[in-house]
């Protein structure tokens, strides 16, 4: 998907930007390698096959990890204590072990000597079956794409469903796919990112979105498989690996063949006040899983522009993209799985706003020529004037086409009013189709001059990004975040939710999933 370069960016600046991003993010990766979290451990148990929830709806992975952490601390990892307990032979499987532990009948301790070896082998084998499921799903995806086919056009068309009820979502998603959606994103219920567990089963009671659960993933994927065959293109499914349960949701996504996941290196910190350390640790693990599963991640740079001004803060988007790129590469994600985000959020009252959008969009396109960039519609400056809204969305679509974006999140005229109605999606798709069909070829005619407004603006933003990265390198990324560098939010490293679920890895820390993922034996 390399686009012909429309902009002359200074190659030295580009190289400088990348190396600064590496220097800024490197220490955070080291920190992530040195810690674990409750969610990483729970994700490991999920890969090992532990499912289900207690009668209150608390998943067994939570009950079990909490029990182990209470008795041994989290710092050794839960795998060895758990599989050592299992090896002891009183419990036929992980589920039964979890039940017993919940009833207070299991003692955990980090095994040593041969017990450790036995437990490690059991844990490895159990987790391997989780990776097998992920690998099988990945093969199924590529087989389906081979036989059914990919969307015929770029950008791929990304539509949202958000009824809160998986059984309303499914027919709406199928209808959207029939009407032209290439990707269906099921929006999550408002509260989920702050839940420190993943709800179980099929759910019907979300607010402005539907809970991300393994079963909801499975149901929707099955429905879209059916529709993919019907419409003759593989319709991708997207959800959120974000919030306090990022690693677990990544594991569930891999095992249930989701195709894309929202997964940003800083979103949870900035917009959900989740502890920075927790976030970076969870993020690395979840991205390693995504890499294994062949899932495209979608980063969340659009969010900055809902609170900061899209012109003033344009370079923070670039900086975040470069950081997201570094973190993703480090976690094993190739460029082809890097759905870096950016958005059409400049105040439409700003003179030449459309051309500024083109400049920003081209900068991203050119900096990341092989990444499936995700282009996000106007939201902040959408108003209840739905007629104007549909027009703005049309120009957003046009900018996407002109600058060769890869994934187009379709804007809705009712953005400022309601979560999308059936008719909103239809009107929005009609808008996209018009722009694609009528003006798709405009790339042939669009040649911003090397010394023109667009090129100057793109280089200006790149320059500001380099400056900011320099400052971040000097201050350290965690301190920069604490200072409100991104999205005007100040988030200190010892603040925010979920810090209590973080532990520095002990010397003897062991996690078979981490071992597999860090070992880099991904298929």
């Amino acid at each position, binding site marked *: 998907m390399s686009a012909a370069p429309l902009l002359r960016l200074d190659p030295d600046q580009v190289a400088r930007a990348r190396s600064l991003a590496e220097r800024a993010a490197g220490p955070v990766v080291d920190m992530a390698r040195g810690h674990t979290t409750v969610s990483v451990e729970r994700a490991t148990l999920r890969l090992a096959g532990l499912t289900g929830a207690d009668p209150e709806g608390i998943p067994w992975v939570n009950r079990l990890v909490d029990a182990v952490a209470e008795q041994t601390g989290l710092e050794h990892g839960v795998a060895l204590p758990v599989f050592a307990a299992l090896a002891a032979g009183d419990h036929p499987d992980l589920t039964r072990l979890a039940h017993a532990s919940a009833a207070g009948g299991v003692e955990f301790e980090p095994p040593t000597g041969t017990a450790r070896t036995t437990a490690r082998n059991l844990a490895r084998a159990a987790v391997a079956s989780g990776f097998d499921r992920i690998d099988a799903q990945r093969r199924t995806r590529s087989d389906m794409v081979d036989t059914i086919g990919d969307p015929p056009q770029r950008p791929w068309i990304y539509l949202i469903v*958000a*009824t809160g*009820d998986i059984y*309303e979502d499914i027919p*709406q998603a199928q209808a959207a796919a029939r009407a032209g959606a290439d990707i269906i994103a099921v929006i999550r219920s408002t509260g989920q990112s702050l839940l420190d567990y993943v709800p179980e089963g099929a759910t019907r009671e979300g607010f402005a979105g539907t809970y991300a659960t393994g079963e909801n993933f499975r149901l929707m994927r099955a429905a879209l498989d059916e529709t993919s065959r019907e419409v003759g293109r593989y319709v991708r499914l997207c959800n959120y690996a974000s919030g306090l349960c990022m690693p677990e949701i990544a594991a569930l996504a891999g095992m249930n063949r989701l195709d894309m996941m929202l997964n940003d290196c800083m979103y949870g910190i900035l917009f959900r006040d989740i502890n920075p350390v927790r976030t970076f640790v969870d993020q690395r693990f979840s991205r390693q899983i995504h890499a294994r599963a062949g899932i495209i991640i979608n980063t969340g740079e659009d969010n900055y522009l809902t609170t900061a001004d899209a012109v003033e803060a344009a370079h923070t988007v670039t900086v975040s993209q470069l950081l997201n790129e570094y973190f993703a590469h480090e976690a094993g994600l190739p460029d082809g799985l890097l759905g870096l985000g950016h958005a059409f959020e400049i105040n439409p009252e700003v003179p030449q706003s459309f051309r500024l959008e083109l400049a920003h969009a081209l900068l991203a396109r050119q900096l990341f020529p092989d990444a499936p960039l995700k282009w996000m519609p106007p939201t902040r400056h959408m*108003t*209840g*004037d*739905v*007629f104007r809204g549909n027009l703005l969305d049309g120009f957003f679509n046009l900018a996407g086409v002109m600058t060769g974006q890869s994934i187009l999140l379709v804007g809705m005229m*009712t953005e*400022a*009013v*309601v*979560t*999308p*109605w*059936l008719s909103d999606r239809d009107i929005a798709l009609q808008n996209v189709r018009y722009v694609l069909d009528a003006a798709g070829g405009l790339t042939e005619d669009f040649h911003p001059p090397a010394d023109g407004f667009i090129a100057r603006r793109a280089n200006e933003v790149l320059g500001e990004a380099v400056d900011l990265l320099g400052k971040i390198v000097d201050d350290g990324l965690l301190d920069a975040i604490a200072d409100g560098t991104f999205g005007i939010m100040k988030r200190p490293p010892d603040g925010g939710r979920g810090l209590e679920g973080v532990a520095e890895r002990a010397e003897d820390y062991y996690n078979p999933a981490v071992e597999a993922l860090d070992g880099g034996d991904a298929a």
Partner: protein
Amino acid sequence: MTRIVRPYGDTTGDGMVQLSFTLPVPHDKRAEGAALQLASKMGIDAAMLVHAKPIGEAHTFFVVYGAATHLINLDEVKVVERDYPLLNPKEVNEAVKEKLGRKLCVVGACIGTDAHTVGIDAILNIKGVAGEKGLEYYRELRVVNLGAQVAVPDLVNRAVDEEADAVLVSQVVTQKDAHLHNTREMSAAFREALPPGRRPLLVVGGPRFDENSAAELGVDRIFSRGTTPSDVASYLVHRIVTAAPSEEPA
């Protein structure tokens, strides 16, 4: 299938609708309240006033979203369904030839000051519309298309001269109900000029007609948006060829 339905936003039964209008009041809180009053009188529950914009000093434009409380009873819906078989050109020609034994004459026009001929041409000209050929293509129909801005007396005279079996009139301009006035004038003129038995079938068409108002306008049939030539040809056969003399145009 359920016979009682409500509008659908994103959930069955939510009743959601979108509404926009201008009020001749300057924009302030009272104007917004007035907009909500209207929404409520229209039966919109928990109306959300999502947009209010002054237009000049004396008007304000509003966009409102909300749930319409009304129930729609599908059993009570009145539609003019096609009450005759749809024939293809060959069938039409055969029916006319066999049963009428002569060519069926159709006179068409845009009357009054209306110059929008595209609609009537779509029905009459060979070129047709929506992939169907127009009535001129039908061998057994004789079509006289008088074109635009034809005065009613001229239309009546020509229909008499041609011994028209049917007169097809198009009306597209609706401002100040021009289409209704002109149609009434036309049907009255035919009633005056000819006794019931000799009067041609009167058919009007245009995008903004209500197909239920034929009787009220004194015509035999009304065709609206999306009409195709075969709809019309089939109807003509049904009324003029197939129908017994007792079913002569009223």
